[in-house]
């Protein structure tokens, strides 16, 4: 007992130490500057990181960075390197601070804090990995915190998606946003909510300028992006703008402010960047917010059409491999597109492996990562570019795994949808480097099934119902039997919902009748498959209720169910009152399967 108490005492001391080191900022009353909105960004290359934060007062501040290995007993190392912060007054009357941390080494854990002597932020960590070779990063569609009207919900969805994604991809080297970080460009509470997950201080965040970010300077005051050219895709006196680029592990990333439709400036900027840095890169990727090959409501917007008419040829000519986009709050993956047209007429929808020839570009549009807003698919015939589209109104994220020879793009649910668990696959495609001309490679493309069909096998005779022999049962006559099982097959690719309902007419005999409500049933899945679920039991209406006189469900499958086949049956239960007029009765059961 005594020993146990001393152990507990030691535990208390340890926790107190933690409290004191964390509380030091508050304890020092000399400098009451509050430091908020700290976000870690990418630098120009792998040896750099950019930091940005907000400060309540305009004091001289630094970022201190140290090897994590030098932290002893939780004390921030005195030998840390300081980087002087720049910045100024923000539109929300705070002060922003930018720092570029340079000289980072490969495969190293670092700790950092920002502020000034006596008033430091909490300590955060980040890790560098190999500066070349394979890597993966995570791509997120429009978090748009606040767009549902409920900042707390949107933030919870965003935080959960980040947790799910970074747990599934613990080595992810970037968090890449498709833009529209917040609903209202100048809302500091929304920014604070958006930046609240700790991952934004640990893994470099790549911001894209969306239409909801552009109404204020807050976007460019919050995000410290490298190599910004504010003359290309320029902002306005009150709105954010600029195009920027960086290189990460031999991949050139370009990010343009698509709010500006000054295509001349974007095209010149991209052309210049590729001319200067294209040779260093094994792949190149472009990101901008307003998707030009999307599946939902924004695809037909006049501004989207304008971008679609002006950008694709340049994107093909510059040899860009992948374009990452948002804005339409629904998932889409394009066919390979060259100069604004389907590059290979033979490419099948949903192919899981593609080999782009020269100028072939794959465009990905991300669904909502926070769940704050979804747009329904338009299913318009003129949307020739859609290889895959998906809208299940659950949160998604996309993991891009980059190797020398291929880019694998997997889009996953960060939120379960019925039987589809968290991290289940929405879509995946691998972009393979075209084989060298002097080598011969074998390749086979496994096509996805064609459009697919909803069908059934049902008894073609009228022997569908066999109720056996009715027996007297207390105050009524009862008959039981089984519905001949029905096989349902659904091979439609997207797995849209289906259901089979039944309704029984009145039992009639000449001019007399009794209600169909006296028939009840117990649906069952005789053979499971394709996400089929049996309908609820319906009691005979003898005791009360409507029985099968109202439409009841035999079975159904929810949106997004697996392709496949199921067998559905039902136990039937007829209970007729003893005072029913005698006669020979007939009734019709209408079984309706709708796809």
């Amino acid at each position: 007992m005594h020993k146990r108490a001393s152990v507990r005492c030691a535990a208390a001391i340890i926790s107190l130490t933690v409290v004191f080191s964390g509380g030091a900022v508050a304890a020092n009353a000399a400098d009451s500057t509050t430091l908020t909105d700290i976000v870690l960004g990418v630098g120009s290359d792998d040896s750099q990181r950019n930091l940005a934060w907000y400060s309540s007062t305009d004091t001289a501040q630094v970022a201190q960075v140290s090897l994590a290995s030098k932290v002893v007993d939780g004390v921030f190392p005195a030998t840390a390197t300081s980087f002087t912060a720049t910045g100024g007054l923000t539109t929300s009357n705070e002060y922003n601070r930018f720092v570029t941390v340079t000289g980072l080494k490969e495969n190293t854990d670092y700790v950092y804090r920002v502020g000034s002597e006596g008033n430091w932020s909490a300590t955060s960590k980040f890790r560098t990995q190999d500066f070349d070779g394979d890597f993966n990063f995570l791509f997120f569609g429009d978090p748009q915190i606040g767009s549902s009207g409920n900042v707390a919900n949107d933030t919870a969805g965003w935080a959960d998606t980040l947790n799910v994604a970074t747990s599934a991809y613990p080595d992810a080297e970037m968090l890449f946003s498709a833009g529209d970080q917040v609903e209202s460009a100048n809302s500091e509470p929304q920014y604070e909510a958006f930046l609240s997950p700790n991952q934004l201080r640990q893994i470099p965040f790549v911001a894209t300028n969306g239409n909801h970010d552009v109404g204020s300077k807050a976007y460019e005051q919050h995000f410290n992006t490298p190599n910004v050219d504010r003359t290309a895709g320029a902002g306005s006196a009150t709105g954010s703008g600029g195009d920027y680029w960086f290189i990460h592990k031999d991949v050139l990333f370009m990010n343009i402010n698509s709010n500006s439709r000054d295509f001349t400036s974007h095209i010149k900027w991209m052309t210049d960047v590729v001319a200067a840095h294209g040779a260093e890169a094994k792949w190149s990727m472009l990101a901008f917010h307003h998707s030009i090959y999307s599946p939902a409501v924004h695809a037909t917007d006049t501004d989207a059409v304008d971008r679609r008419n002006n950008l694709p040829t340049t994107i093909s000519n510059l040899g860009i491999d992948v374009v990452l986009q948002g804005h339409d709050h629904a998932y889409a993956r394009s066919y390979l597109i060259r100069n604004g047209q389907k590059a290979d007429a033979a490419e099948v929808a949903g192919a899981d492996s593609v080999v782009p020839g020269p100028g072939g570009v794959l465009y990905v549009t991300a669904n909502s990562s926070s769940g704050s807003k979804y747009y329904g698919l338009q299913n318009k015939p003129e949307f020739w570019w859609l290889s895959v589209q998906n809208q299940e109104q659950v949160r998604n994220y996309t993991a891009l795994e980059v190797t020398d020879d291929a880019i694998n793009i997997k889009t996953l649910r960060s939120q379960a949808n019925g039987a589809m668990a968290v991290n289940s696959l929405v879509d995946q495609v691998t972009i393979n480097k075209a084989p060298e001309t002097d080598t011969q490679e074998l390749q086979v493309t496994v096509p996805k099934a064609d459009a697919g069909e909803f069908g059934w096998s049902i008894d073609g005779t009228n022997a569908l119902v066999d109720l056996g022999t009715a027996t007297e049962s207390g105050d009524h006559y009862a008959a039981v039997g089984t519905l001949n099982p029905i096989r349902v097959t659904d091979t439609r690719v997207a797995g849209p919902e289906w259901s089979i309902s039944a309704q029984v007419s009145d039992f009639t005999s000449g001019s007399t009748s009794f209600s169909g409500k006296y028939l009840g049933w117990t649906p069952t899945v005789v053979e499971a498959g394709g996400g089929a679920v049996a309908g609820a039991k319906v009691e005979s209406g003898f005791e009360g209720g409507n029985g099968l006189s109202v439409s009841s469900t035999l079975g159904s499958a929810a949106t997004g169910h697996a392709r496949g086949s199921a067998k559905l049956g039902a136990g039937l239960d007829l209970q007729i009152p003893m005072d029913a007029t005698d006669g020979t009765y007939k009734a019709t059961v209408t079984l309706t399967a709708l796809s």
Partner: protein
Amino acid sequence: MRRSTTLTHAALVAILATVGTLAAVSPASADAGDVSWGVRTAANDQGTDRQNFGYEIDPGAAVTDALVVSNHDAVPLDLALYGADGFTTEAGQLDVVTQDTESVALGAWIDFTADSVTVPAGESVEVPFTVNVPDNATPGDYAGAVITSLGQPSQEQGLSVDRRLGIRIHLRVGGELAPALTVADMRVDYTGSANPFAAGDATVTYTLENTGNARLTAGQKVTVTGPFGMLPADALKMKAVPELLPGESWKVTTRIAGVIPTFLLSAKTVVTLQSASSDEADPAIAPVESTATTWAVPWALLVLLLLVAAIVVATVLIVRRRRRNRKRLEDARVDEAVQRALAERETELV
């Protein structure tokens, strides 16, 4: 009475016997047994690889489309073709009216070039149809289906089965869209517990009515509170509201356990409307609220308190009476002693 039941019994046997005889006659194929067919959307100007049919058509306009019917059997298949109006079932699924019920909206606007189709064995046939929206059609959302139905010979008796396989159609008729929803007949009932210290259950019921012209789904939150918003309790795991077509309603019943009887109980529901259609450009719809109140008297506790009070009063009365009795006896004893003493003194004086 005895005679009547015997006859009913006989009638029932007749139903079943008839079903048995008809089994020998196959209307659709030479072989008795299963018939397999499937439907899908055609690939044409209206779209490719569609999940089902969806249109936006202005009043007076029409759209021509087609479904593909595939016969997976070794014998030709005759199927009837028609359109039918949709409705939401009590289980929340879309179904369409049976052949006995005349379609009056979308179902009535669907025209097939023929009433039936014969699909050769193992083949697929593209079946065109037209959706003609009348000039006077009300703007808003409609649901229905194009139906393929396996023909059946007319029967004199028995339990026959109409087998229909179809593809749903969602139609939005152009014009002003006015989504609206009301909460009707809201009430809350309270069931207390026999245990005076236990909480009871509140049951909240109401009906959601889609009073607008757009199909809708809704999120809902139900909370019960005591007076002045004390002790709020939320309904958990509420069943989702299915897509409601214009004019349809949906009954909601939810039980909230662990509600403390605070004499007056208020229930409030906040229904958040969501458009179920694919077009997000709907007018924004404000959440709809409704409240109801009921008495939630802690009867068991009150009875217990009354019992306790009665015991206390009774005890006090008994104690008082005993004290009074004791005093009276004591007084009598003293009196008697005095009398006796006085009597003795008088005796001495003598």
